[in-house]
């Protein structure tokens, strides 16, 4: 609300000001402005993240003590399925690219919008439709899906719960993701400002580019897999039915051909955020720019060749186990290159430990633990021991929540002042970080040990020897929830009532910081001409 009615006061709100005097929901949900679409995504993603987190808390509460019957067995199955489906398909896959990517991509390349603004809006509508269909699948038919987010046959074919509708939701969400991907690839190829060569792109844009390629080329496999499950159930095709000569393992191949690269859709943009934040707070040019950009592409391509490491105990051929194990080790190399380059950038930098950097450091810690534990499972021998145990659960929550989650939080602390023009409380942001980090590690680290001890994932109940670890983990979930509350409250209070942030609170060098905060609707009044790289900071003292 803008009681002053002074024209300048309205102008200060940039793209947030009601366009042409039109306010209300319509000016948002029909807007083709990439910044508004980015914020729409961000709002939906955070809301659904909270929903998924509540389901996770419920699960942890049920698992706090052995023999606990807080949730009925069938409800528990539905809860872990929904937690997975919401977190993977509705939160993590769109997360950073759809929200921050949409908001920042045109700003980073000096364009006024993405290549296809209306298609961009359609992507968001499809995302919303997918979310609605997923919601319908919970409350209609004969019960919420209980297959886990992986929809493995034969159970997904036979269960009487509402799987058919859920996989349709997955199909729609996949379509939305493909459209975002092709929009971004085209935007990066066609709309870069004069002087913005490929070597002057920010590393965030490079990571979006690599991600967009996976979205375009791998997501269709998810689409066809979802359609196949649907037609198996509705048309009884029997393509995966062993009793009719089908091969259920082919389902797993198809599913993971998409779903392994999907973890790179989740993590690559977070790596891009990290690569953009570290040089700003180390006041140094990024170390090994070319290698980081290249490693994003390497991760995207080699990451498409490792899918069957999810199937080592499924009865696949031994040769396939050998080859996929080997390829899995190779894909660790580009990730390690990134971590090495980030640390080298910090080395002898002039570091200011502002909240975005702290969350970024949290990312590096959690991602390293998660990544290394991933190698342990990529080794075919060790995999047999830990397959489908809590070790796997710990691994991917370290990588995906500790990685993508903290990356998203770092991005919030870095760019929210740009989006809304106001600054949050620094001290509270730092405090919330430590609570979140402590909670995450207490929640997930015991799961590594539980997994090594043999606790299988997704089980409704457990033996007494797992009680200590399960209890610690549940306590961790409370601490984590507290930390998240602190962080979101601080951010919200900041964007409502915080002090004005100014155009460039961090002294960063990418193009979005040359604009006022929040940016004006048309982005750049004049097409910018770029003469320098994204991490060429002006020297202290004003001597250029």
């Amino acid at each position, binding site marked *: 609300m803008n009681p002053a009615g002074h024209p300048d006061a309205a102008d200060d709100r940039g793209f947030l000001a009601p366009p042409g005097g039109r306010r209300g929901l319509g000016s948002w949900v029909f807007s083709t402005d990439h910044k508004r679409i980015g914020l729409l995504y961000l709002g939906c993603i955070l809301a659904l993240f909270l929903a998924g987190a509540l389901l996770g808390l419920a699960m942890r509460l049920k698992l706090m003590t052995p023999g606990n019957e807080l949730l009925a067995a069938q409800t528990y199955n539905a809860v872990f399925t929904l937690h997975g489906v919401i977190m993977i398909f509705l939160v993590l896959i769109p997360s950073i690219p759809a929200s921050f990517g949409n908001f920042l991509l045109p700003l980073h390349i000096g364009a006024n919008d993405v290549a296809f603004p209306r298609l961009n809006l359609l992507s968001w509508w499809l995302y919303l439709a997918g979310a609605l269909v997923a919601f319908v699948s919970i409350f209609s038919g004969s019960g919420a899906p209980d297959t886990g987010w992986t929809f493995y046959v034969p159970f997904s074919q036979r269960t009487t719960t509402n799987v058919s509708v859920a996989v349709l939701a997955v199909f729609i969400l996949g379509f939305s993701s493909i459209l975002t991907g092709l929009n971004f690839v085209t935007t990066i190829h066609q709309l870069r400002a004069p002087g913005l060569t490929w070597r002057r792109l920010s590393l965030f844009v490079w990571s979006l580019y690599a991600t967009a390629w996976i979205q375009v080329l791998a997501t269709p496999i998810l689409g066809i897999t979802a359609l196949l499950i649907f037609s198996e159930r509705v048309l009884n095709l029997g393509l995966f039915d062993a009793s009719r000569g089908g091969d259920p393992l*082919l389902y797993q191949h198809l599913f993971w051909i998409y779903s392994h690269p999907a973890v790179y859709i989740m993590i690559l943009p977070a790596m891009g955020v990290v690569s953009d934040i570290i040089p700003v707070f180390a006041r140094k040019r990024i170390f090994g720019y070319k290698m980081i950009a290249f490693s994003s592409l390497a991760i995207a391509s080699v990451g498409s060749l490792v899918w069957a490491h999810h199937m080592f105990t499924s009865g696949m*051929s031994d040769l*396939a186990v050998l080859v*996929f194990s080997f390829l899995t080790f190779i894909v660790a190399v580009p990730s390690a290159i990134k971590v090495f380059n980030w640390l080298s950038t910090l080395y002898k930098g002039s570091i200011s430990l502002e909240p975005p950097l702290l969350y970024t450091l949290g990312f590096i810690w959690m991602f390293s633990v998660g990544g290394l534990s991933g190698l342990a499972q990529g080794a075919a021998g060790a995999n047999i021991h830990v397959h489908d145990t809590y070790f796997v659960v710990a691994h991917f929550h370290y990588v995906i929540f500790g990685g993508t989650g903290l990356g998203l939080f770092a991005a919030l602390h870095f760019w929210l002042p740009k989006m809304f023009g106001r600054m949050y409380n620094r001290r509270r942001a730092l405090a919330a970080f430590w609570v979140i980090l402590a909670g995450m590690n207490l929640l997930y680290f015991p799961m590594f040990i539980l997994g090594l001890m043999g606790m299988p994932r997704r089980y409704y109940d457990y033996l007494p020897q797992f009680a200590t670890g399960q209890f610690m983990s549940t306590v961790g979930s409370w601490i984590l929830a507290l930390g998240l509350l602190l962080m979101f409250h601080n951010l919200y209070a900041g964007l409502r009532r915080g002090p004005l942030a100014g155009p460039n609170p961090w002294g960063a060098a990418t193009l979005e910081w040359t604009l006022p905060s929040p940016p004006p609707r048309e982005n750049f009044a004049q097409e910018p001409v770029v003469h320098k790289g994204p991490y060429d900071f002006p020297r202290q003292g004003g001597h250029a």
Partner: protein
Amino acid sequence: MDPGDNQPAPRILSSRLLTAVWAALACLTGLTMLLASIDLGFYNVLAALAIATAKALLVIAFFMHLKYEGRLLKGLLFLAFVLLAIFIGLTFLDLAFRAPGQS
């Protein structure tokens, strides 16, 4: 450096050229049906796929104008085909090498 990586001049293909391509496609269709009536065992499948690929290339090159596009689109098409080949090929590492009785 020009920001557009993909700016070919618009190219108009003559009706004559397009019709010639169509004739070639029709002939190849006849050829593949003829070949199918001869029993070559598994080579039937290979021959049919080879002819189908040739026809596909004709459609892509002329009807879809790819012959006259920049390097970007050609390279990307190649990438898409390589990717599909890899998906199928790596899956066959499993399917073709399962131990007997492992079905």
